[in-house]
């Protein structure tokens, strides 16, 4: 699904590289998690996948290629806007717009120019159901999204992402701002979503990675140390440093 081939990345036009020679294949309709200590480049790599790093003007992929469904996403003929419609993203700090719940979910469709009320209604309901939020909010769709609890807001953000029907959902520490119960709900949701979406998740919680992901990649100081099935990496890591990190000896 996603193949990352010898990618190096720099935020300052190549002076210093935050990612060095990363190569990995992310399988379709599986959950892949990126783990590693802070500053190891896992979030940066995630943001490379939907070219969110374009927002930083001086950032460059210096070597290598990222191919999604066979196409080089940094190619000249690829429109980042179009790309992002296919690759959704959920952020660390839940960030619903200060609008109604309905408007939040419909946002992605509206900016694509869809005005048909019926179509929007259907899409909103489907997305909220998909994000397991429908039953909680169906009576107050017109209320401000900011009135929801943190976990609900994060699931709303997931629903908002799902509304534009992406193939891939990138999640950047989606549970780091949530309490354990809300985290459990989001994790449950992720497990359900894997049937329809390819999910890449960045997490600081080793338990979370082991609970929800099929494949796990461990990064350290901008390099990919190990990339294996989750079971293998947690029970029988091939590299010493992975083992140290997982067992909590550093990080």
């Amino acid at each position: 699904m996603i193949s990352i081939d010898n990618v190096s990345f720099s935020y300052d036009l190549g002076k210093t590289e935050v990612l060095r020679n990363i190569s990995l294949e992310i399988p379709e309709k599986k959950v892949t998690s990126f783990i590693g200590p802070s500053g190891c480049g896992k979030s940066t790599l995630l943001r490379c996948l939907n070219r969110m790093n374009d927002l930083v003007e001086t950032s460059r992929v210096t070597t290598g290629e990222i191919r999604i469904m066979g196409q080089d996403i940094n190619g000249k003929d690829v429109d980042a806007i179009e790309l992002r419609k296919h690759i959704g993203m959920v952020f660390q700090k839940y960030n619903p717009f200060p609008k109604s719940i309905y408007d939040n979910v419909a946002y992605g469709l509206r900016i694509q120019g869809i005005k048909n009320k019926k179509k929007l209604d259907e899409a909103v309901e489907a997305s909220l159901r998909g994000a397991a939020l429908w039953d909680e909010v169906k009576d107050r769709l017109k209320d401000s999204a900011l009135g929801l609890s943190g976990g609900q807001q994060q699931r709303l953000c997931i629903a908002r992402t799902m509304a534009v029907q992406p193939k891939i959902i990138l999640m950047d520490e989606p549970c780091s701002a949530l309490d354990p119960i809300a985290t459990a709900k989001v994790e449950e949701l992720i497990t359900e979503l894997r049937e329809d979406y390819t999910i890449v998740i960045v997490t600081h919680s080793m338990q979370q990675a082991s609970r929800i992901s099929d494949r796990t990649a461990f990064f350290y100081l901008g390099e990919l140390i190990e990339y294996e099935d989750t079971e293998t990496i947690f029970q029988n890591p091939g590299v010493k440093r992975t083992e140290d990190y997982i067992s909590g000896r550093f990080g």
Partner: protein
Amino acid sequence: MINGLPVLWNKGFSFVSQKPQTLSVLEIEKGSYTVPTENFDNMLLNNPDELAIGNLEDFEKSFAYKTFKIDNGSIIGEGYLKEIEKENKGYYLRFAKRDFATKSGFSVATDKKFNIKKEELAIIQQHDPGLIKGEITEKVINLNKKKVTIKAGEYDLSKNGHDALIPTELVFQMKQSFPDDEPEKINTTIIPKDQTITVTSAIYNQAFDEDERGTIPVAEEVAIPYTVTFNQFTLPAAKYKVSAETLKVLSNYGIKHLHNPMLGSIVVNDDDDEKVTLNEKQFKRLVNDNPKLILSQIEDSQQNVSYTKFDLQKDSEIQLNFSDFLIFKKDKNFSPSSEKTHSYSGGGILGPIIGTACLVIICMTIALFTGIAAATYLNEYARKGGFTRIIRLAMLNLAGVPSIVFGLFGLGLFVMIAPVFSATPNVESKFHVPIVALGSAPDLRTLESEGIEIVDSTLSTTQAVETANLVGAKKFYNGWYYISFQGWGTCMLAGGFTLAIMVLPVIITSCEESLKAVPMGFREAAMALGATKWQSIRTAVLPYAFPGILTASILGITRVAGETAPIMFTAAAAEKSDLPWQGIHSSGFSAFVDFLQQSVQALPYHIYTVAGRIPQSEYTQPMQYGSVLVFMIIVFMLSAVSIYLRIKIRNRIKW
């Protein structure tokens, strides 16, 4: 400010609902007077506690009016048309033709004797042979001329004497000039050498009468006989119709009419179906004096006006707004024994308030549009680097520039050289850039009132300008549309732009702050959902920055409303009787342009005028204090609104 309170208390709401006026201070003898109740009430407002008034009696008077429509093909004298337009606000006739052939009417109320010169009689007899039916007698009148000799020296001279001497050959030099508002003043004049000049007796009486102060003593005078032969005849009381030439002559001898014999009558050709109203007396005179008038749909109507009769129980000094004074004068008993006027001291300050509001609206529209655009560019699009640093530095500098400099800048750019799109460009424009040959010729009335010269369309622009210059025209028309760099003139638009440039740094800075306060997450979320950069800014950034922008712009308004210097040269008029939307005769888009291209009164400038530019007296002071108080109240209110909004918005929006 404390001194302003009694002003507001006494004048009440009328202070902010009336236009500024000249105040007349009159000495009135005791007696019984009758005036419309409205004006009576105004008098009470102006004289809160000094008048001894008794025997009040209210009654209604009814006035007869005629409503009618002037049909096409009518020929009407210019003054009559102006009278109709004055009585019917909004009626404005665009005419395309004038007419000399039609005879104009006038009436003579009582038998009138004329003494006219021989040549003038010849004109009358040539054009209207049948006019003078009675006997014509010749009479020789001796109009003495005098040859006077004046010695060199310094003498006192009154304004009257000065005015009389100007057309003569006398060489003299005034030490001071005469101010317009002090006609009684006597100044010193210098006669550089001994001179002998010949003057008529009228001038002699004004300037050389020896007894009085203010005239020049004469060293030697010789009377020169100068006789003129006059023809004497009588016009009996009746209605007359005469040609324009005859009317021109008779006008010099006190015939009352409203025709304009120099320019001719007006031919009505108007597609509007508008009806007009005149009172009975004016209507009678209109029909009487315009024989070729075709009226239709004539209807009678009555209007009741409430009048008040009152006794003034002792001689007193009363203050009246000038417009009230004009109405009071219609009462025949009402003859003040002395009359002094104080400009801007009567009425209220409606005009300046409205003008300031208009300026603020125009300014904020421009400033917010450019300010938000600039802030969005700087905060969202521009790369951090040398260019933005220069822009920011420029903005900082701009914020520190004294406001009078903005005023002069606005004068130079907007008032004098800003481009105008026009078919009738000014002759004195800096450049003329012709665009298309699609101009439609202005109607005769516009041509006359604006001094437009129609030039041959085969001439080049330079030649056209020269031609128009030769005949002394202000504008020219040759069938082309021009972009003419002639400036917008002193007008609201120029003032609005000047003020906008002045507040722009403040607006940009605060808009940028508001944009920065919107969390990065909103932009990222929108982008991640496939929004383009502009979409994300429009839907996920600007709406949430808006409350901050609003607060900033209200603060901007208080600053703009208070500025005097930038509008002094660009927009403000000291005196203007119409409110901005009154007196506009065009329609559609050009009405909007005309609306913007007029000068206005503005509150801070009005305060400056009443406090610093007019002769001060006890009567001008209430206006000063009142204006300042109202102005402070407005500014306080705006500030309070902005504080309230800020608190409310801060409580409401959280993320």
